[in-house]
């Protein structure tokens, strides 16, 4: 079952904040976040591990609630370069590198 992201789309002004949520009906072993700009490859942003450890981007933060099977990505003081589609991804099982990706959130930052 594919993780569901919310909102589906969001428009911001530069400097505004945004939160993107990722919710799964199955256990999340870890959560990855990726950003894909139009016509480009998805780019890894960060990983969240069980226990709350984060590794990745230094300008974007995220949280991981294992019990609720949810993760949230926090974009603060948005820049034009933040525009793109954000995907959460999670392994299909423990110890595997096969990922299932969320439904995606389109984010557009306006000047």
């Amino acid at each position: 079952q594919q993780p569901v992201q919310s909102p589906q789309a969001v428009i911001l002004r530069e400097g505004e904040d945004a939160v993107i949520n990722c919710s799964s009906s199955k256990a999340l072993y870890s959560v990855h976040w990726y950003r894909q700009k139009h016509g480009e490859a998805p780019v890894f942003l960060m990983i969240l591990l069980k226990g709350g450890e984060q590794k990745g981007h230094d300008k974007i933060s995220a949280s991981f609630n294992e019990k609720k099977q949810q993760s949230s990505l926090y974009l603060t003081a948005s820049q034009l370069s933040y525009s793109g589609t954000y995907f959460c991804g999670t392994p299909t099982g423990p110890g595997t590198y096969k990922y299932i990706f969320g439904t995606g959130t389109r984010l557009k930052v306006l000047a």
Partner: protein
Amino acid sequence: SAVISQKPSRDICQRGTSLTIQCQVDSQVTMMFWYRQQPGQSLTLIATANQGSEATYESGFVIDKFPISRPNLTFSTLTVSNMSPEDSSIYLCSVVGTGGIGELFFGEGSRLTVL
């Protein structure tokens, strides 16, 4: 990080034909994956390309439709066979980074349009 090159970057194909997509990585990698991204949609894993053995396919994808080769640790091909308009998608090659955290690196994708 890994640098991944895919060819072709885009193509327009006729119904019933087949097209092979190539993926070249700048370093040896154990795991290579093929994803499909239908227009405006998320990424869906097609298969894992295994070096020296048959690819492992995900539910809904079969070898006859998406044959995969993996002749060495830096190269793989995905063929989309007997194409129909429903196969119009972006096909992305992906590898796991060597940083130990399981991050995926993606190629730029091959955008196929089937008429």
